[in-house]
């Protein structure tokens, strides 16, 4: 396969942003990050700019002006609004069979979900929890808000 040299210009465009190798334990990557966004991993908090990886066990935390969008390895898209806490409880994805599990918990705040290959393969694969409810997902886009009443 021979293509014009013009494509060699691409690496320049790709050096913008954080370059991180995709590792097996990575569940997803942050594609949108606005305002205060942090990842808490093993008790330590770190800022979460575009390009940061998200792993099973991570907490994704946004401040009053924060919002964040994450694309997972099965192409699920999760985005959270301000003052939110999202826990990535379990992420397992077999890229050959599309089997696995994606369980997350919105502890507080707002969440928008576009389900991906896991939910398409098996209706049981994706679960989203809140402190008061558990959601079952059959190939769909949906929104979640949770919090105690003021």
């Amino acid at each position, binding site marked *: 396969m021979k293509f014009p040299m013009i*494509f060699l210009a691409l690496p320049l465009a790709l050096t913008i942003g954080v370059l991180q190798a995709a590792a097996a334990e990575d569940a997803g990557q942050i594609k949108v990050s606005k305002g205060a966004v942090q990842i808490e991993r093993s008790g330590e908090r770190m800022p979460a700019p*575009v390009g940061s990886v998200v792993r099973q066990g991570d907490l994704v935390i946004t401040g009053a002006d924060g919002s964040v969008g994450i694309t997972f390895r099965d192409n699920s898209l999760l985005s959270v609004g301000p003052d939110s806490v999202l826990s990535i409880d379990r992420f397992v994805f077999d890229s050959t069979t599309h089997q696995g599990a994606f369980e997350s918990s919105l502890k507080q705040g707002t969440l928008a979900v576009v389900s991906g290959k896991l939910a398409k393969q098996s209706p049981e694969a994706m679960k989203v929890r*809140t402190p008061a*409810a558990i959601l079952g*997902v*059959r190939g769909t886009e949906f929104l979640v808000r949770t919090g105690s009443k003021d």
Partner: protein
Amino acid sequence: MALLALTGCATRNDFYVLLPGKGPSPGALTVTSGNETHTLDQPYAAARVSRPGSVSGEKTSEAEVRQTFGPALAAQPARPVSFYLYFLQDTDEFAPESKQVVSQLFAEIARRPAPEIVVIGHTDRVGSVPYNDTLSLRRAERVRDELVKLGVPRARISVAGRGEREPEVPTADEVAEPRNRRVEINVR
């Protein structure tokens, strides 16, 4: 603030909404709290949980959704897009139209923040499932190597072999079908 949410369970302000989505059907969402389950299967069908164990259904609107979920919706990542390369029969060569596909692919990669490229091999149904798993992965790895030569950083590319599980044209087993012998390049 997580602590607050965990301890303040007595009175909830929880709201769940099924969106129309981009597919032919909106799919479905079940909301279960305690012993109660409510199924949302129409666009903008919504459920409210005001205390644990109590789920009530209602209908919401795009305008109401924008008000409550505006920032979360605005932060949605761009949807992944797929490009397809086809193989000439019985050769290692790609079909001629593939060159144009590659230029579209590179434009898509350049446009995205922190782009990732997943190269996914697919086969037709000639041969066994394990054989086709191996063949599809090998095709994907070859395309990955070509992309690396063209300047895409290797660390941004992952490969997968879907074997014969996801035919573009459904066929009976052992049917040769060129349109199913393809490599999908998913950009996200």
